Each structure stands twice: as C-alpha cells, then as structure tokens.
C-alpha cells in the first residue's frame, strides 16, 4: 500500500482538474512541436539528405541557394583542393506542376543533382525524376508525367524517395541538365549557362571548407547543419516555436506547482498527524512528487492520443509531423516539469510541525 497512489486511486476527483489542464497542455505541446517538426523537416529534407562535408556557395549569395551561382571554372578550382575527394553540383527551382487528373497544381522543388543524397538513387534518365512521397498527397503516382511550371516542362515520375522536400515543396530529383532545362524554360530571369550550378556538394577529408574558400577566393563553404540553418525562415521558425513551447512548459510548471501547493496546504493537518506517527518529510514529499508524476503521465497518455488523432484528422497540407522524438521530448519535459513543480511543496511539507497534531481539533 502506497499512500500517494492509494489516494490517487480512491480520490481521483481531487486530481481531475490538474489532469485535465495538463492533458490540454500536453496536447498543445505535442501540436506545437509537431508543427515545428513538420515545418522544419518539410523545409530542410533536401539538405539534410546531402552526404556532404561542406556545401559551397558563391560568396555573393549570402548563403542562399537561389542567389548562388558556381561556374565550371570555380568547380575546377574546388576539385583541385587538397583533401577534396568528390564534388557534385546541386540546384533547386520552386515551381507548380500539373498532375494528371488533378485540378490543383502540386508545389514541387525540382532538384538537379550529381552525388546521390541519402535515400535517393543515382540520377534518373533525362526528363525523369524521383519524387518525394509527400507528392502522393497531391495525387502524383509513379509513371505520371508532370507538367512543370508555366512552360509545362514534362517530367516523368520513376519512383519514390522520402524526406527530401525543400522549403515545404515536394522534391523532384532530376539530373543537372534536366534541372537546368526546367529552370531556363520557366525562370528566364534566372537563366543558367551550361555547367553552372547553384552550389557544390563536396566530400573530402580534413577541414576542407576554409581551404576551398581560400583557393577560390569567391566562395563561402558551410557545413550541412549550417546550410540547413541558412535556409530562409528555418532559424526564425525554430526560435519562435521553441519560445512558445518553453513558455507552455513554464505554464505546466506553474500549474503543477500551484495545484500541489494548494493540495499540500489542504493536507497540513493530515501531514501533521502522519509526521507525528513517524512519517518522514522525505516520505511525504516523495508522495507529492509521485502523485504529480502520475498525473503528468496520465495527462501525457491522453494528450498524446488526442494529438495522434488530430494528426490523422488534419488535412495533409497542414505541416504537422509527430515524430517519436517529439513524443519522447514532450513526455520527458512534462515529467521534469511535474517534478520541479511539485518540488515547490517541499518547503511547505518540511515546515509542517508534527506537534501540530496534538491539541488540534481541526
């Protein structure tokens, strides 16, 4: 018989308010986290998939793929740098694509590549593409010919790849020549000469980034993680969502702290009696913490189930992505908040005088 658990079992109504509030807060945490993950993963998949030691931009591009231009001359210099073992061109063009049988355009990111990213096969034949499986939601099927951009450039879908989207648009992975053709046909304002790419994906040994920049004198090399964070809006999204998530955790802390403080205050007489008959402060405090943790676990389970249902019910264009990592983070954060929140009661429990049990008719 554990006093704290027995009370939870026999008097569940005393904990209902806290459980309901924490359930909604855990649901909110999961939805916020899911949206953050959905936005982040949907924006960065194409870059995270790159097996690159550095990604080389032209230095005037200020770390932007769309502004960057690497000429064949620059590429030759990069290939000659000590430690560089593999170099491949990479470029993206964001367009709408007509899908057979669908009235709405699909948002696609046509990605020209040479070195296969993780999970993406070697480049397909000219005019063909590996499509990110998120494009299924837009009605795309294998064998479809998508008409890309205002010029209706045809691209045939040969197969699916996963987690390769770019700025929330479905990745269409094509050869560099196909990509350049799409770009030049649909974005004449950003015409690309033969051999020009946006960035270089470079593999090698040692600290090759500074060596490349020193050799070319006109490039800026970033690691893959730096390149991910340099994508427009990614850092801002993360900091905004994280601020909301941590604020929500502060509310969880306050709710748990306030609730268990009031509960402890209400139990002052009972704790006095229990101390009088031999209960230690530690035992009583552990009981309070245990109750807070159990309430948090129940709230997480219900909140998690609701979030999972919401994920299934929401339209595909809502970038909600609930990952195992997000569930684990939210669970751990709730438990930590419950422990810290309930710890507010420690001072109150410690100060309860066992002598108060004597001479009190309360």
């Amino acid at each position, binding site marked *: *018989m*554990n*006093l704290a658990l*027995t*009370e939870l079992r*026999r*008097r569940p109504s005393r904990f209902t308010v806290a459980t309901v509030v924490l359930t909604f807060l855990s649901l909110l945490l999961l939805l916020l986290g899911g949206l953050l993950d959905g936005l982040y993963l949907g924006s960065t998949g194409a870059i995270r998939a790159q097996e690159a030691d550095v990604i080389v931009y032209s230095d005037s591009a200020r770390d932007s793929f769309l502004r960057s231009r690497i000429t064949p001359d620059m590429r030759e210099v990069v290939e000659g740098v000590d430690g560089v073992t593999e170099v491949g061109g990479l470029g993206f063009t964001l367009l709408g694509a007509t899908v057979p049988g669908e009235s709405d355009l699909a948002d696609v990111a046509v990605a020209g590549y040479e070195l296969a990213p993780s999970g993406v096969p070697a480049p397909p034949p000219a005019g063909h593409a590996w499509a990110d499986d998120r494009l299924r939601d837009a009605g795309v099927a294998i064998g479809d010919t998508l008409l890309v951009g205002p010029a209706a450039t045809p691209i045939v879908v040969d197969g699916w790849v996963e987690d390769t989207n770019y700025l929330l648009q479905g990745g269409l992975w094509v050869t560099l020549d196909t990509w350049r053709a799409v770009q030049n046909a649909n974005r004449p304002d950003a015409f690309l000469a033969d051999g020009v790419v946006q960035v270089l994906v470079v593999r090698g040994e040692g600290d090759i980034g500074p060596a490349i920049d020193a050799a070319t004198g006109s490039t800026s090399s970033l690691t893959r993680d730096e390149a991910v964070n340099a994508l427009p809006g990614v850092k801002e999204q993360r900091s905004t969502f994280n601020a909301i998530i941590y604020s929500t955790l502060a509310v969880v802390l306050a709710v748990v702290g306030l609730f268990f403080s009031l509960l402890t205050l209400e139990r002052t*007489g*009972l704790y006095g*009696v*229990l*101390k*009088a*008959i*031999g*209960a*230690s402060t530690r*035992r009583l405090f552990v009981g309070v913490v245990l109750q807070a943790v159990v309430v948090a676990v129940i709230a997480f389970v219900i909140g998690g189930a609701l979030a999972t249902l919401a994920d299934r019910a929401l339209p595909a264009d809502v970038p909600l992505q609930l990952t195992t990592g997000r569930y684990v983070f939210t669970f751990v954060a709730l438990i930590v908040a419950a422990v810290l929140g309930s710890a507010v009661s420690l001072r109150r429990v410690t100060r309860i*005088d*066992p*002598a108060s*049990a*004597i*001479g*009190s*008719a*309360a």
Partner: protein
Amino acid sequence: MSSSNPSDSSAPSGAAVLATAPALRLDGIRKVYGTGENAIVAVDHASLTVGGGEIVALLGPSGSGKTTLLSIAGGLLAATEGTVVVGGEDISGHSPRELTEFRRSKVGFVFQSVNLVPFLTAEENLLVVSELAGARGAARKQARTRAKELLAELGLSHRAGNLPAQLSGGERQRVAIGRALFNSPALVLFDEPTSALDTKIGEQVMELIQAEMRSRGTASVIVTHDTRMTHYADRTVRIVDGVLGLADAAGDVSGDH
C-alpha cells in the same frame, strides 16, 4: 492525593502499578517559548514517572501546559531543559530524524480529532504504521495479520473495509486506538480522546482504553480537562500554569496545588 513536592509527580500512587520499569520518565522538564521579556514558560521544571502498564490522567485547564508536556513526552517537541526517557530510551538529545524513528516505533498517539487517513479503510489505517516503517514481504504479511487481530480485539472486524467516513465517532476512535497500539509501543499518549464524543460514547471509549491498556500492560498518559473521565486512570496528575501537581485517583484536584 498530594505530593510533598508539588512540582514532583514522580512517585506513582493510587492504583497499583502493573510493572516496575518506568515507561516514561520526565525529569526537570522546562519549556520556554520566546526569549527575554517575551519569554513564556509553558512547562516549569516538571517531573513525572509513569510505570509500565500505568494509566495516568493529565488534567488541566486550557493553556495549562498539558499539551506541551504530552508533546515533549511523545518526542514531538524538544524541551528547553530536562530529560525525557521513554521505554528506557533517552530521547532528550535526539535529532529530528531519530525522533521520527522513535515516534514510529516506541510510542503511540491518539489525537483529539481522531485524524484517521480519510481515504484508507479501517484496516489500512492500522497498516499505515508498518507502511511508514517501510515493511516489505513477510513483514507486510505479518502486519496484515496483526491489523486483523487488533481490529478483532477492538470489535471492528466487520468494519475493516470501511472508510473513516463510514464509521461512527466511537468506531473511528477505536481504529485510532488500534493504530496507536499497532507497534506494541511502551507508551500510548491520548490527547483529549473523548472531547469529540458524547458522554456515553466517551465513557465507552475510556472503558475500552482502560481495558486495552491493562490487557497489554501498556502505559498511557491521557490528557483531558474532563474530570468525569479521570476515574479510568490509575493516577491523576494536575497541571496548572506549567507546574505539575498530584490529584487523587478519582480526579479530585481541589486543593492539591
């Protein structure tokens, strides 16, 4: 009955003391609250010895210091001066942790307002004592057997599964007595055990206390302000303004101080 020294109530008198070894010895106890001009002497050099199996009524008006003295005897409050020995254990210099352990194992309490744990059944309220002692495995099984035995002796077997709210005032007090006796303590301290009960139930409870203490040879100190209850005790000790004096066995305290 009066003592030659009004502040020394050590000498057992009145009804026979059932065992020779003292269950409680208070020697020169002084308790002062505050300091300097604001100091209040709650108990003034009080000495009291309670023999094994003896039932002592501690009688006094409100604010007389009886609750303070009871708290000191039970290790709930530290005395400013003096020595407290319970069941042969000198607790005068005990740390708070040692006092917690002492209260858990050596002394039983029955409080004024019963104070059972409201969400535990009668049987579980007895088992709280072993739960606090961290009983596991065989010890827990033994505790369950002990709780059932105690409830049977107290005539509460049929109420074992009832919550305190489902028990009458007398039944709740009996459960509280069972909880106090659970660890077979050397001393049980009763704080106004009948104040929340009507006269008839109060007398029944006092009879039960007397019978249970006698049958176990357990010493007890019963704090009360109700002179009608003192005849259940072997001896009545009066306390006024923190000073102990003796009253007769029937609780007649007039002129003894």
